């Protein structure tokens, strides 16, 4: 048994306290990340404007296909025009809210739905992983179906979910449309979690489980003290994939089943208005990006909370 193996034998038992130096370093690295993030945004904006200024107006066409896009204001509005449009009212209707606010509201709606889908998907994924880790027969029986589930095309599946949902009525309670969207989001989210968590739960070194065995620890104690902590480095990327899946599922399902209040729907309606108001069509695209960033940031926070268990993870 090597020295490193010994230190990770029961990672749940020892929680390393970060020293003050480490805290200062962490603060610095947050600042560095923020600066890098802003620089990245500026670089994208600069590349956009640079391409728009330098490339031919009609883009680059090879043969019959355009390999580089047009640079007209219709195809690529100026960055400042898009930002300015965000501050203007969404339409000339009296009392219309500014565009950014309408987009932010839609992002918030989608975020809630995606979060509900992610939580449900993660719970189902974890339960499935636990079941499969407990019973070999469950793994043999379930895993192929779990993989198969992801081959069902969303556009075939989504209207069916809506149709079922619209018929569910228990007592006075009716199935709200947002739950159909969340269900589809969870359908995309549970898969990476189930597979990743199972892989993680099975990743324990044999010596550790044998050690627990020698303590006469039961299955559940071994699971809690050894397998679960050891699964964290596998679980976090799976949760991140799940979050991405939940966001994509939410946006696509909103379009597919016509859920009106979210960012997915807004992407389609504003794209339909892009001829006369090209800047407006970009606003929900920015909104969707923010949605993805928030979801990713949430998982990063989760990783911070679970950092005790992440020592084995490659940096």
């Amino acid at each position, binding site marked *: 048994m090597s020295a490193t193996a010994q230190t990770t034998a029961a990672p749940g038992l020892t929680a390393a306290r970060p020293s003050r130096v480490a805290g200062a370093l962490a603060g610095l690295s947050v600042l560095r990340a923020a600066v890098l993030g802003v620089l990245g945004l500026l670089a994208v904006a600069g590349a956009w404007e640079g391409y728009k200024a330098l490339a031919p107006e009609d883009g680059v066409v090879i043969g019959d296909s355009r390999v580089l896009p*047009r640079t*007209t*204001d*219709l*195809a690529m509005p100026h960055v400042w025009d898009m930002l300015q449009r965000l501050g203007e009212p*969404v*339409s*000339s*209707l009296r009392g219309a809210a500014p565009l950014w606010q309408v987009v932010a509201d839609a992002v918030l709606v989608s975020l809630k739905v995606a979060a509900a889908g992610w939580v449900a998907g993660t719970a189902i994924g974890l339960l499935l992983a636990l079941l499969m880790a407990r019973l070999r*027969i*469950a793994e*043999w*029986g*379930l895993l*192929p*179906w779990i993989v198969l589930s992801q081959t069902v095309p969303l*556009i075939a599946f*989504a*209207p069916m979910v*809506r*149709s*079922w949902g*619209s*018929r*569910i*009525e*228990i007592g006075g309670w009716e199935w709200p449309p947002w739950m159909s969207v969340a269900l589809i989001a969870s359908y995309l989210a549970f898969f990476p979690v189930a597979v990743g968590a199972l892989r993680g739960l099975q990743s324990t070194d044999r010596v550790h489980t044998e050690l627990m065995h020698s303590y006469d620890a039961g299955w559940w104690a071994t699971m809690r003290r050894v397998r679960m902590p050891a699964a964290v480095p596998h679980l976090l990327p799976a949760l991140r994939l799940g979050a991405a899946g939940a966001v994509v599922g939410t946006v696509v399902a909103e*379009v*597919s*089943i*016509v859920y*009106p209040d979210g960012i997915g*729907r*807004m992407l*389609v*309606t*504003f*794209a*339909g*208005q*892009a*001829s*006369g*108001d*090209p800047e*407006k*069509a970009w606003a929900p695209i920015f909104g969707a990006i923010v949605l993805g960033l928030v979801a990713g940031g949430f998982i990063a926070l989760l990783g911070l909370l679970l950092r005790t268990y992440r020592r084995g993870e490659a940096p």
Partner: protein
Amino acid sequence: MKKNLSRRLAAGAALALAATTLAACGSDDDATADGDGLIPVTLQLQWLPQAQFAGYYAAVDQGFFAEEGLDVEIVPSGGDIVPQDALANGDADYAIAWVPKVLGSIEQGADLTNVGQIFQRSGTLQVAWADSGIDSVADFEGKQIGSWGFGNEWEIFAAMAAEGLDASTVDIVTQDFNMNAFLQRDIDAAQAMTYNEYAQVLETTDPDTGELYQPEDLNVISYADTAGGMLQDAIWADTERLASDAEYADTTVAFLKAVIKGWAFARDDVDAAAEITVAAGSSWGPSHELWMANETNKLIWPSENGIGVIDEAAWDQTVAGALAAVNEQGQSLITEEPPATAYDNSYIEQAIDELGDEVDTTGADYTPADVELVEGGQ
């Protein structure tokens, strides 16, 4: 062998799960009156909330449905929801859809009846630049012609068939739901509805002049003037339920009466109708919405035989076009005449009779408003 067994067990478990889930989905098809004594009705639209459907939203807003004892829920589409499928599946009680699309569904086994032909004429255009040399469908030959697909393309193919053209001589290009491909001259002529996409062009600034594009900049071919013109927005009902469920048949007449009142309201107060659809969730600016409400009125009024009554000649032309049209993949929309149950004027005629002098159902004196478009449809 053991592996096989475990797989079967898993499959069994999955089936059992599915069965319990389905069992939880109780059916609420029985159209019994709810708490306030109104009969719940679901209307499935074929697109997002917008002034194209102003009459239905006005009937909700003005309480016309409630007057007829109905509690109507309007369900928008625009994604993967096909209105006639939703109706055939029992998800909706009535659906708004174009006639050619539903004729295709009927041939594939859906049992649906057109009970109200709200739009009396086609609103589809093919818009080309004035300098394109495209003045008629015959000029499509060798050109890139935009089309949305999704069943919206059959008028194009029917009109082409009447001119002896097919997809081997005309390049049909799938078009987005905005006019950018046309504005950037990626396609020679774009499909456009009078009430929507045509206005989008006229709301766009011409980079050469700095002013909005004008109708003079465009050559507009209206399918209503061609052999390809087909009937569009109609109210569809479930044929089998009409025959077997007397209450549904009565509800249909009540529903149509409220719809007629709604469209008469939209005709007589086009500004209010546009405001109602904006309030109902249309994301268009007020000027575009008003344009749409006004152009939609033009497709309905005047209605010589009364709003919603199916004109046999127009129906026959639609069927003939649907039979003649062959798309770019060589497929036909329908191969035989639709059944006699595909339309039935008795419900709409009864509704018009019962309304009597209460509502002007022909709109003989209708004069459209003059709507000014502004940049971006704001």
